[in-house]
């Protein structure tokens, strides 16, 4: 597998300044700069919460360390440095360091963050050769195309599933109606409030296309125009959210980590959770943790949004660092590494189609694979606007679940012209 090197964009430079700069660089060992100690590779990782890296990664630190050690055994003399940045801070942190030439060589992030990095010129494109493309699931490739190049490379998939306490629930609900029925009998349910993590609930009401349309946006000043069927589906979904908020045993939280902690402490019995939390939950709950697919409609499986982790390449790497970055990404995508990551950190699914997911031997893997197969990926051309639209939708949903906004005015607000 190989990646074509994307050249560093050079602004037009003139005169004596350029000469002086070039002379200085040449005097210091040419474009390779000064070789100081071992080769160093800097990787920035976007975490999914604002609690720092410890809460989310837990023992995953050791796993990433072992991954780095294996890479170093193949590339002796390479030091890999990981920096963690909370979701929402990675772009600003990268811009801050990029302006100093201290940006990362590689960035692991969600797709929307990779898009933001790309659009703000904080990451550089990479060429994928046919061998590289063969190592990636075809459905993940098109989203990152930028002409003949790609602005990001898929790394791992983290689908959304249901996590529950086996002591309180033997058989997980198959539909959202069954979920509410169980909650009426005393099952304490925890649901996230963010649109991405609540999207699976649209399946049962058939509101997925309508919500997707709201997220994809419309020209400023225009009201959303939904088909009559989509409008009715949206009404049903908002009404379902409103009813859920009225349930005594259903609670919503805008912090997924809080839901996970509540499940751990026994304050919740069933939550909707991203697979990235499974490893930590299993360590703390042991065999009491149950994982299943999310409930859908009466005869339709839920369509969740899968969290896809991708690699982006930094802009100011030296030639040697860029080469190492490409080697590292290639290493992370090979069959053995992808399989090891899947086995060592339950909840991470490979993007390499040649890795077999053991769905028959593991109920957990079966649930994850099922969720991934039925998941949806959003393709945002304008990630910043998508974040704003998502925030607006979430703020309406918050008011609905808190009983401040009945369904009718909530729908009116969702369909109102954007500023």
């Amino acid at each position: 597998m190989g990646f074509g090197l994307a050249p560093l964009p050079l602004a037009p430079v003139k005169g004596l300044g350029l000469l002086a700069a070039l002379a200085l660089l040449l005097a210091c060992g040419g474009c390779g700069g000064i070789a100081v100690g071992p080769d160093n590779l800097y990787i920035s990782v976007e975490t999914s919460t604002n609690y720092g890296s410890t809460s989310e990664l837990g023992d995953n630190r050791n796993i990433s360390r072992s991954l780095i050690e294996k890479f170093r055994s193949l590339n002796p003399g390479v030091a890999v440095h990981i920096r963690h940045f909370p979701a929402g801070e990675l772009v600003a942190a990268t811009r801050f360091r990029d302006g100093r030439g201290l940006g990362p060589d590689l960035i692991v992030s969600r797709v929307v963050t990779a898009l933001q990095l790309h659009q703000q010129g904080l990451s550089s494109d990479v060429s994928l050769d046919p061998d590289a493309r063969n190592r990636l699931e075809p459905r993940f490739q098109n989203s990152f195309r930028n002409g003949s190049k790609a602005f990001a490379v898929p790394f791992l998939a983290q689908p959304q599933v249901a996590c529950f306490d086996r002591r309180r629930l033997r058989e997980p609900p198959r539909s959202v109606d069954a979920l509410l029925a169980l909650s009426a009998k005393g099952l304490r349910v925890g649901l996230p409030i963010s649109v991405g993590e609540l999207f699976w609930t649209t399946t049962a009401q058939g509101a997925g296309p309508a919500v997707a349309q709201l997220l994809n946006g419309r020209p400023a000043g225009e009201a959303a125009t939904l088909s009559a069927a989509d409008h009715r589906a949206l009404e049903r979904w908002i009404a379902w959210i409103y009813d859920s908020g009225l349930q005594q045993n259903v609670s919503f939280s805008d912090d997924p980590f809080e839901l996970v902690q509540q499940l751990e402490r026994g304050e919740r019995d069933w939550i909707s959770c991203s697979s990235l939390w499974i490893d930590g939950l299993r360590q703390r709950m042991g065999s009491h943790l149950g994982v299943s697919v999310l409930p859908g409609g009466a005869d339709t499986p839920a369509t969740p949004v899968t969290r896809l982790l991708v690699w982006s390449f930094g802009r100011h790497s030296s030639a040697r660092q860029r080469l190492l970055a490409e080697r590292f990404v290639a290493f992370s995508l090979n069959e053995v590494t992808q399989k090891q990551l899947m086995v060592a950190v339950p909840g991470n699914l490979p993007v390499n189609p040649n890795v077999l997911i053991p769905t028959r031997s593991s109920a957990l893997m079966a649930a994850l694979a099922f969720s991934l197969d039925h998941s949806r990926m959003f393709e945002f051309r304008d990630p910043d606007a998508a974040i704003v639209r998502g925030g607006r939708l979430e703020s309406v949903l918050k008011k609905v679940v808190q009983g401040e906004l009945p369904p009718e005015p909530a729908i009116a607000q969702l369909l109102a012209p954007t500023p």
Partner: protein
Amino acid sequence: MNQLLYEIVGWLGFLSRPVVLLQCLTTAGFALGYALWLRPRLKARRYRVSVLGAVGLWGVLRLNGLVIEQLGYPGDLATYFAQVWGAWVLLAVIRLLLLTRCPAKQIQLLYSRIVQPLFVLFVAGSLVNQLASLRDVAEIPLFPLFGSPLTTSNLFLLLTIPYFLVAFSAIPLVWLGHLLQRLFHFSHGTRAAGTLVLRYLLVAAGVLWLMHRVGLNTSAIAAIAGGLSVGIGFGIKEVFSNFISGLWLLFEGSVRPGSVLFIDGDPCEVRSLGLRAAVLWRNRDNAELVIPNQTFFTATTTTYTGSDSLRRSAVEIGAAYRHDPVVVIALLEEVARATVGVRVEPAPRAFLVRYSESSIDYSLRFWIDDPLGNLSIQSAVSQAIWHAFTANGIEIPFPQRVIHPPTDSTGPTPAAPAPQQD
């Protein structure tokens, strides 16, 4: 610890990037040029010219960042270096301005103990934040301490918080002490003692908070404290005893900063009461005496500032027998009242104390406000007495001895008369 070293060494790897190297080398070049060429030439000039030179370097460094950006390279690191240097120059200018209004010693202490250490920490922190994620560096476990890993941030807190607790607490507490003194009309000694006790409490509370923040195992600390108490009992009991004595003396109020004590026949002012010893100033020879707190705790202490700061002084004088004691006593009391530094109330009193061989001896007793000014006021009173006696024709007799040789001729030959002695 290995992981931290791994990270720090890894930061050097950024120098392999031409864009970083360009910023660092140009900045280093300008800084070296300033340090080796310009600064020595400005050293002999006036201080303001030196400051102008430093401001010039800031301008050049800022320009360097702009030029690098104009060339199409990232230049924020060069700008950052300019900002750091600019902040340093700004602090120097502020210091110059403060020196025109405040005592130089206080400004020196403020800068050396607080401003400069804070500046270094700020620069170090901001630099680390650019080279890595400050949160990640803070979370690096270094080594186990009482069963839990000590992280970089906790080690940093353990090293810096106690220092800043001691250095910082003085300023607000001194202000608070002055405020309370104005409100409740404390004496200076009470204010100083209260400030010191509050400072100890603040430092102790800060240390307790720090231990909680760092997450030290309290059971382990209790066990170690138990072990240490044996060590304290045998090894450093004197230090501990002095510390407790100092606290006790502060609460008791017998020895406080500002008190005047009688040490080896000399009045001395207590300058400070430290953890181990008190520092006293002796007026006679401007010496500072460092006396362990325990000394005051176990020995008798004579103080002039216990219930008040008045001191009763006295001058002994003799007048010839032919003068009426009533006149002499009246004159002495009048002289004392007229001397600067002698209190009018309680009124000066003179006494006839004895009939000596060649004079009637009087004692003039008077009160003064400043216990340390006794000698100078005594001298002033004595001089005034001499002038008053001269003006009133009162003789201060000196002893005379008349030796009569024996009249018996069979006796031994008398020796030569010995010189008269008192």
